[in-house]
């Protein structure tokens, strides 16, 4: 593994029941860059993040993070590795019994022995970055979906991780917030030297910040490369996805028998 690669996925296969979510994919995620993983919904983008973080086990193949095989690590070492990871869940996944401030302070209080004043100012800084310092006394149930995701982002960066995974960060955000988030992700990445992995299907927003793009469909990587390479690529798949065309080789339907053959069976 070269110095430039932080996460390496080797020949990964993952099954959900009978369905192959990933079918032997290999991917290198470069260090210090924003890598976008795109694909139609249901292609297992979130699953890929959970596999990288060791929350799910692959059926075959390996995932190496910082030179360690994630799925061979003992529990303690895996948790050590996760301290260097931040993850922004699609739902936010805030702890519902704590208010916004305590949610962001939670990882700091659990993992560091910092005095309360320092935690106070750190949390304020993180909340200021996502524009929610004024909401610090609210409970998660009082937040909108977009706001909870921003609080979750503040929590994700509370411990200043080395890598951060964003699971659909732009879904349900208004245009202004979206713009702020796009800028925030890119700024965080470049000023703190983070490695970011953004899973999303908001093509324009993602392409505006991604250094490296990977498009997944039907369990395979159908295109990867720099933003320019993707946009100029010849592949019909990518073209259809990036431009959002209704017709093309990317299937819109969940795997199913052809309509006619199934209705035939019902009639007889």
């Amino acid at each position: 593994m070269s110095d430039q690669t932080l996460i390496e996925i080797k020949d990964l296969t993952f099954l959900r029941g009978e369905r192959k979510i990933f079918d032997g994919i290999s991917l290198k995620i470069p260090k210090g860059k924003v890598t976008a993983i795109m694909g139609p919904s249901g292609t297992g983008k979130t699953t890929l993040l959970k596999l990288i973080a060791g929350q799910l086990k692959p059926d075959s193949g390996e995932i190496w993070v910082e030179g360690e095989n994630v799925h061979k690590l003992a529990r303690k070492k895996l948790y050590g590795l996760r301290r260097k990871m931040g993850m922004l869940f699609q739902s936010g996944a805030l702890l519902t019994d704590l208010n916004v401030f305590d949610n962001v302070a939670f990882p700091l209080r659990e993992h560091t022995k910092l005095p309360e004043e320092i935690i106070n100012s750190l949390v304020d800084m993180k909340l200021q970055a996502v524009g929610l310092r004024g909401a610090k006394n609210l409970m998660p149930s009082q937040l909108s979906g977009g706001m909870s995701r921003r609080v979750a982002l503040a929590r994700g960066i509370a411990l200043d991780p080395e890598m951060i995974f964003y699971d659909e960060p732009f879904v349900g955000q208004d245009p202004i917030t979206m713009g702020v988030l796009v800028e925030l992700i890119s700024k965080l990445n470049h000023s703190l030297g983070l490695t970011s992995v953004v899973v999303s299907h908001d093509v324009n927003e993602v392409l505006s910040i991604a250094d490296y793009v990977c498009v997944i469909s039907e369990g395979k990587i159908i295109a990867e490369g720099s933003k320019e390479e993707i946009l100029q690529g010849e592949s019909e798949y990518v073209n259809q996805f990036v431009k959002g065309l209704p017709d093309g080789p990317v299937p819109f339907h969940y795997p199913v028998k052809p309509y006619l053959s199934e209705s035939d069976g019902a009639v007889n």
Partner: protein
Amino acid sequence: MGLLIKTMQKRSIKLNGLIGLLQKTGHNSLQILASVGRGAMFIMSLLPALPYSFWRFDLLVKQIYVAGVLSLPIILTAGLFVGMVMSLQGYNVLVDYNSEEAVGSMTALSLLRELGPVISALLFAGRAGSALTAEIGLMRSTEQISALEMMAIDPLKHIYAPRFSAGLITLPLLTLLFIALGIIGGYMVAVGWLGVDEGAFWSQMNSHVDWREDVVNGIIKSVAFAILISMIALFQGFNAIPTSEGVSNATTKTVVHSSLGVLGLDFVLTAVMF
């Protein structure tokens, strides 16, 4: 010819039904076995995390409040009424033999040996066990447990262990309070209302209740029930399908399994102890 085909079709439907039944039985047994296996693995992974709950005292105290202090009203009220009813029923029988003074020892013994541990455990399963399952099931469905794992915080230590230890500590204490209130209720009915002699009431109780045989055995029972209920409640939450239907099913299962488990285990323990 047509008739032959029809009978053959009928037979094959019958056969299919039979095979279907076999298949279903096999499938269900496999699922039950698999969930027993998952339960055993869950318990094995929880055990090493348990000492942690005493190290993080703040988490433990919060859970003791939730499981114990909040269960106090139902436990105390139930204890009082059970004691009163025991005393009333006991008096009605004993008075025919002119031995109504024995009502004190009868109430105390039945509370200490059986009613205290068993009824407290049943109430605890309904009040605290179901809440535990629903809480953990919902935490999973809203990805809070996943989020903890990603923040490098072990949910076994942070979520499961303190809840288990809290159950283990609170149920025996609640049981003792239940019994104490039951005896007070019995005293109120027997002495206050039915006119049993106060001195006889207490002295009979004093001479018939044995510390080791009755009190300690009752406490041992309630500790065993606490382990059983906490394990079932935590495992059902852990194992719940993370949807509204899955969580509601798991909550029901917690109450049903732990109630039946408590009654079954009570028989076994009684057979061994007395």
